[in-house]
């Protein structure tokens, strides 16, 4: 599935790197611990989290994630967004909570990724 499909289906709002939505998403991972994402998220997967800190961008770059979904209507600050823009990491926001987001992504056909 392409990232833009997920954006459309879940009516998420794109906060950065809007030009990168044609990326193919390989699966999903949900966690709020950065090292846990570092350890387990797969390449090109979509990461669902409540974290807003700039460091989510570094994690996404190092793990080559397709994008970051920030849940519960939380808004990342401008530093996070400008770093995401610079690195080409799409940040998507939604008012839905994690459980709901993951459930819907799963229904769209995304599966969990596990890799080291």
């Amino acid at each position: 599935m392409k990232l833009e499909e997920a954006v459309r289906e879940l009516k998420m709002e794109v906060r950065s790197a809007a030009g990168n939505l044609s990326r193919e998403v390989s699966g999903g991972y949900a966690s709020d611990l950065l090292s846990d994402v570092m350890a387990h998220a797969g390449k090109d997967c979509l990461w669902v989290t409540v974290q807003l800190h700039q460091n989510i961008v570094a994690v996404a770059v190092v793990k080559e994630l397709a994008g970051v979904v920030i849940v519960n209507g939380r808004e990342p600050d401008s530093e996070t967004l400008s770093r995401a823009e610079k690195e080409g990491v799409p940040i998507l926001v939604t008012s839905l909570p994690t459980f709901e987001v993951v459930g819907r992504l799963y229904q769209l056909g995304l599966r969990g990724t596990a890799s080291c």
Partner: protein
Amino acid sequence: MGKDRGIGRVQELTYELKVGEVMTREVITARPDCPVGELRELFRVNKISGTPVVDGENLVGIISIEDFIKCLAGGEMDCSVEKKMTRKLEVLYADEPVVHAINKFERYGFGRFPVVDRKTGQLAGILSKGDIIRGLLNKLEIDYREEEIHRYRASHIFEDILADKTVITLRYNVLGGDFDRAGISASTLKKTLTRLGFAPQVVRRVAIATYEAEMNIVVFAEKGEMVSHIYPEYIQIQAKDKGPGIEDIEQAMQPGFSTAPEWVRELGFGAGMGLCNIQKSADEMVLKSKVGKGTDLQATFHFPD
């Protein structure tokens, strides 16, 4: 994959490039009191099909070849441009991203839009679809060449250096508590290693370990450094700090064990998995630490044949 990325880059460029960068700056214009009949020569000589109408410095309208044809059919060649032009103007601003322009072309179906400077309100240029395509192609070519040059230079570095032993050392300073710049060494090193032509799998493993080691310095030490030694056969990273040191290394290596303060954990750090992640990514890991003195971590990554 390659194709997808190409499309992605073009889309990205439509956000990066500004209308002002791709527009035609030398605009042919008509005056409001000019008779419509004179447009024929203006259009023909300049091979254009429409032109903004400018009164002194101000943009007052736009007139196209369609307006001209209507006048021709109605025998109104002596009528002034002012009376036949479109006054309700759709303009673009020079500082808007090109993607706005593309949306406008789709929405209105016009062949061109006058471009206005947002500050002065004056005509700055004109934009057609051809200008956009030309602008995008130019930028793509520049990007492509720059990256090619970087890659070429970097990937030949070992061949070009003549020595009995070649080591490239990359040093990144890490400031304790600086969560805003945390992760920069890892992403910068990743970019550099990719340019040097190393296999993506190796680059990923090195980047993960570098990230975790960097975070440890940021969370626990006042300052430290990340040094990467690149050998023709392997990469070794070293994280050195003058931090508090680790009391019990065996305990620190346990997954989930962390001494990070609560506020750090709330940011999503301090999960107690950093060292395990480094060990899993690396082929070899050596951790030395003295309480009150600091910590020295080395991790080695061999290249698969």
